């Protein structure tokens, strides 16, 4: 049907089926800012329009209902290519990051400001109440509105968007907005779905209804007869290639325990068949005709079930090692199940799959038993974290096609080079035959470090020659995507009456689910990112990671650190309470400081011996002191209502900046013929501003305006190798590579200018805005230098190349403080205040850094209080919508929330920078748990901390 509506002020005809969703029609009609994050749940707001002068979800409107309607989309905010003042303010405030629904947020704020030029905080909260922001939190949206008001009133901003750092630097440490933010705020064609050509095929995955079963046979004959079906891939016709989906450095510290599709399914939702068809209706019809004979096996869902004697084995095939095979391997394999696929370890991870152990590690320093004997009190408690989901607004998605005889994949990934390697391996083709293009990423948070869809799409495209688009449904995002490893962490901690901690023991039992993605590295972080914050002589940890039949686990922002901190800081708080010591004083007494030798690192090397280094730059004590002052530590707050009890808590935290000795980044910087620059960065900007960091490195070194630099990143053809954006490596590794490339270009530029000016290079310097200046006052612009260098008699284009590897650690530290109110009658919990103080070294993009802190903190509050993947007795996930699962929205953010950047300068990071966002996930759970204990006397030792658990512990029912 055709309908006529007024869209963005113009009478417009829309065509489609009467029952088609308005969003789909609008997107197809060119209003591409409108996206779908929730499969029509009416939750995330990526499909928001103004419909007859009211905000509405276009996914919940059918085409026929729009007849005669007045519709505004985010495109209405644009004047040609110019964005609006609201969009600009959002960029300046730092909230435009992964930006999948940033255009919709801009539309809503514009709508509000049209109705009320001076809205209150509650009114802003109301207008953003139906939009889910995962990356940047909500705090700076209030700032964005303030900026718009000031600009409209005074013609300029009167409020600073963020503090500035390093007065000697021009762009580094200064708020500037992301260089790629304007098209993101505008709603341009930037994401994978925008690359899909008409006529492309789709892929649909038939998934297992069983948590654990052999597939005895699959009959696809009837399905293949369906008109429009191109191919069906199953365990019986896929390549016999073993790999793992985690995008880690090669060789990976994770087992190759899967093929594209396996003859045994290991979780509800595991892949059974992939159908390539002309459209989704055809694919789904074909899927319904596939006959699968399953032979179910008893599943295991928890660590306790997996470690029990005689437990069903999730993997029980032949084990192989690429290196370091144990002498008794042949004997070990005698009990292998011939019906199962192999498990291949790149090197030993102390696994024992016959006991469901995917990986294990142990280590420590000092004499743990002696330490406990010296203690006046010892606590020994077990803490449990739940399975939580990254919930990126853009689900996992991939578009693949053949171009020039090569396989081209448009991806939303954190690891384009790992995608290339793994897909090439599966297709059994050389890497040069695969081109991976990282598009803008609508949220990753670790889940897009895993190659969860690109493997299947890549192979299907290569096999069929068809262009294929695949997108996870939101439900699939829950049960077939990577999640945080649920963990059970026992902490035994001893201390003296003066607050000295004498010994710490951690027993970490992690649940990796059906496959071993990150089965060592993520759980290791529970210890490797927590124990090194303590200046304690006796520390030891044991780690076991178990296979189970839950939905898969994998990387998630913070890796295992948020779980480790929940356990270890809670234990410290409990010990302090038992000793009658102020936990803050206990922390102050036992934290590391600059120069302290981190002997504990020797045993925390993630599968190999770790390197002992001293603590470098460290703002931990300042963060603790400043945070304590801000929250009024020691001052007991009393509510007027006796039902409400108020308490305070804190956590000291650290993370890392990439993986020294493992990560590797490369970049190039080209001087173009007009004197401007292009950076080719291997690093994958996933919305966090990494491209801006690369651009700032070049602008700073070459002394040019930021506007003179563009960045191409994450394209495996155009850019050089980078291990990817994970483990907080972006700024430190990819940023340093760009910095080194800029320095190399500077050297080459000076050498070229020296030849052109006929003076020694050491007598030249560069000058803003882009000149090489000789001591005698003569100068050449970059344009002049480049023009001559690329002329018919020139010496060639100037290109700087930089790589970065390092043995040095740039550890970010911080302290988070929470004040909560708990209703001891109803169990309701309110986080009243949350202050996050972090040492990020030199924050290169300070406004983005602050928003990443707000986003990570709110995410972590969600994990602590709300979010929970619940499985039924058969392993089926019951919480596959946002509403069922429970993510924090603007109403759930603390009323008083502050992010503070502690100013320290790191010795190794680019311009003294360290990482920022992962660490911000570590503090909320322990700080809130401690605050709840302070308020109620109850320590809740499991996620989510719910009213029900508190009330039960209080004996209310």
């Amino acid at each position, binding site marked *: 049907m055709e309908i006529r509506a007024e869209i963005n002020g113009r009478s417009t005809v829309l065509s489609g089926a009467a029952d088609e969703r308005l969003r789909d029609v609008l997107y197809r009609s060119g209003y591409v800012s409108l996206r779908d994050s929730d499969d029509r749940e009416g939750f995330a707001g990526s499909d928001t329009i103004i419909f007859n002068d009211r*905000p*509405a979800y276009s996914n919940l*409107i059918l085409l026929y*209902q729009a007849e005669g309607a007045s519709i505004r989309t985010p495109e209405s905010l644009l004047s040609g290519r110019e964005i609006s003042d609201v969009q600009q303010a959002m960029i300046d405030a730092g909230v435009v990051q992964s930006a999948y629904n940033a255009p919709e947020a801009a539309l809503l704020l514009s709508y509000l400001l049209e109705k009320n030029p001076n809205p209150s905080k509650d009114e802003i909260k109301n207008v953003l109440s139906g939009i889910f922001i995962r990356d940047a939190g909500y705090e700076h949206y209030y700032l964005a509105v303030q900026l718009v008001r000031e600009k409209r009133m005074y013609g300029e901003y009167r409020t600073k968007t963020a503090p500035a750092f390093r007065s000697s630097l021009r762009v580094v440490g200064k708020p500037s907005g992301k260089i790629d933010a304007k098209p993101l705020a505008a709603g341009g064609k930037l994401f994978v779905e925008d690359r899909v050509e008409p006529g492309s095929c789709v892929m649909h995955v038939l998934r297992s209804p069983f948590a654990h079963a052999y597939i005895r046979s699959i009959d696809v004959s009837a399905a293949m007869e369906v008109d429009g079906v191109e191919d069906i891939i199953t365990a019986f016709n896929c390549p016999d290639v073993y790999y793992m989906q985690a995008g880690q450095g090669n060789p990976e510290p994770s087992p190759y325990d899967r093929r594209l599709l396996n003859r045994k399914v290991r979780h509800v939702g595991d892949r059974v068949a992939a159908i390539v068809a002309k459209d989704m209706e055809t694919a789904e019809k074909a899927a319904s005709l596939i006959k699968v004979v399953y032979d179910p096996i008893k599943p295991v869902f928890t660590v306790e079930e997996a470690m029990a004697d005689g437990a069903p084995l999730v993997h029980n095939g032949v084990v192989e090692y690429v290196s370091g095979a144990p002498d008794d391997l042949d004997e070990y394999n005698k009990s292998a199940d011939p019906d199962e696929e192999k498990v291949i370890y790149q090197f030993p991870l102390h696994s024992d799959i016959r006991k469901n152990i995917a990986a294990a590690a142990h280590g420590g320093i000092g004499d743990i038993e002696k330490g406990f004997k010296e203690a006046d009190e010892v606590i020994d408690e077990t803490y449990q974290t739940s399975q939580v989901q990254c919930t990126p607004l853009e689900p996992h998605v991939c578009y693949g096609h053949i171009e020039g005889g090569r396989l081209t994949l448009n991806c939303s990934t954190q690891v384009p080079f790992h995608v290339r390697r793994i897909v090439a391996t599966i297709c059994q083709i050389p890497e040069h035959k695969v081109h991976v293009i990282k598009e803008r990423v609508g949220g990753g948070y670790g889940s897009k470090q895993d190659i969860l869809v690109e493997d299947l799409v890549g192979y299907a495209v290569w096999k069929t020659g068809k262009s294929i688009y695949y997108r996870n449904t939101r439900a699939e995002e829950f049960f077939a995507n990577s999640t945080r490893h649920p963990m059970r962490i026992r902490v035994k901690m001893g201390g003296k009456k003066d607050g000295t901690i004498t010994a710490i023991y951690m027993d970490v039992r992690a649940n990796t689910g059906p496959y071993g993605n990150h089965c060592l590295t993520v759980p290791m972080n529970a210890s490797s990112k927590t124990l090194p914050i303590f200046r304690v002589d006796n520390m030891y940890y044991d780690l076991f990671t178990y296979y189970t039949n839950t939905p898969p686990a994998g990387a998630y922002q913070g890796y295992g650190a948020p779980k480790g901190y929940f356990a270890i800081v809670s234990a410290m708080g409990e010990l302090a309470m038992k000793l009658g010591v102020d936990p803050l004083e206990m922390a102050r007494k036992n934290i590391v400081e600059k120069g302290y030798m981190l002997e504990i690192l020797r045993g925390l090397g993630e599968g190999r011996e770790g390197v002992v280094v001293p603590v470098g730059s460290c703002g931990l004590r300042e963060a603790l002191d400043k945070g304590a002052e801000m929250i009024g530590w020691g001052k007991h707050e009393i509510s007027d209502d006796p039902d409400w009890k108020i308490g305070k808590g804190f956590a000291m935290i650290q993370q890392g900046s990439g993986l020294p000795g493992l990560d590797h980044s490369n970049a190039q910087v080209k001087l173009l013929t007009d004197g401007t620059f292009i950076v080719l960065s291997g690093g994958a900007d996933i919305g966090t501003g990494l491209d801006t960091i690369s651009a700032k490195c070049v602008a700073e070194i070459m002394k040019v305006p930021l506007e003179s630099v563009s960045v191409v990143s994450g394209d495996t053809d155009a850019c050089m190798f980078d291990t990817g954006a994970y483990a907080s490596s972006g700024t430190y590794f990819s940023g340093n590579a760009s910095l080194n490339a800029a320095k190399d270009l500077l050297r080459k530029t000076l050498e070229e200018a020296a030849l052109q000016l006929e003076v020694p290079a050491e007598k030249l310097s560069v000058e803003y805005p882009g000149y090489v200046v000789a001591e005698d006052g003569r100068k050449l612009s970059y344009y002049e230098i480049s023009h001559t260098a690329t002329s018919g008699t020139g010496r060639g284009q100037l290109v700087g190349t930089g790589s970065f590897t390092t043995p040095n650690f740039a550890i970010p530290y911080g302290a988070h403080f929470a004040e909560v109110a708990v209703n001891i*009658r*109803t169990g309701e919990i309110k986080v009243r205040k949350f202050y996050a103080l972090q040492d990020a070294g030199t924050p290169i993009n300070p406004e983005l850094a602050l928003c990443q802190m707000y986003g990570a903190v709110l995410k972590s509050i969600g994990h602590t209080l709300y979010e929970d993947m619940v499985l039924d007795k058969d392993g089926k996930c019951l919480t596959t919508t946002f509403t069922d699962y429970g993510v924090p929205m603007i*109403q759930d953010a603390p009323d008083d929330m502050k992010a503070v950047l502690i100013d320290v300068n790191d010795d190794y990071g680019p311009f003294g920078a360290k990482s920022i966002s992962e660490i911000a996930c570590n503090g909320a759970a322990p700080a809130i748990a401690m605050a709840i204990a302070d308020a109620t006397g109850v320590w809740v030792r499991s996620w989510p901390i719910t009213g029900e658990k508190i009330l039960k512990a209080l004996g209310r029912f």
Partner: protein
Amino acid sequence: MRIHRPSAPEEAYRLRKEIAGSAYLLGGTTVLTLGSEFEDLIDINGFIPGAITAEGSNVVIGAGAKLEDVASSGIVPPVIRTAAASCPSLQQRNMAAIGGNAASCRADGYMTAALLASTATVLVYDGSSARSILYYDYIKNHEPEWIVLSISVDSNADGTVKRISRASHMHAVVTAARCGDHYAYTAMPSAIISGVCDCYKDMVLESDTLGSAEYKRYLLSVIFEEGNDGNKS
């Protein structure tokens, strides 16, 4: 999906009766959302009123009135306004119709407990005529084909409503409402009751992803316990 657009209740009723598995479409926030797939939708927006008017001592709310209109109305009693405003998303409030919310009789419905406690009546078309019945009776006795045309509440209804959920946008674990000495309680997944203060004791409660049955029973017991008016928190 087939869309039917009747112009009168009689026609809508007939369609609903004739087409198995069909559903009425009003605001759309229930039937058009994930997990609600219908082959046939009967769009009743063409004849359902949406106005909110004062009629004597009552306020009559057209079933098509959006929750945002109800929440911001100057003539709707506060307990009903509060219930409508408890829908946490502005977009949802702009789209969800009070009639659809009431007719779905969900235990996590934003309006269910407040309408019950305020002894609201609904004007329903039952296939033969439009008649006014207590909302309580509608919940107990309605047939799927019945059409809610409007809702009437005492404009002086004085009460309070309390919705407890883990996070703002999650389903309510329990909701309780009181108007005078009339109480109503709902608890996920399907328990709904109305009556005296401790009528919750007769509810059959189930454990689910939101909490245990014991937890829900406890919550219901304390919301209006002596000295509390439900909104204290």
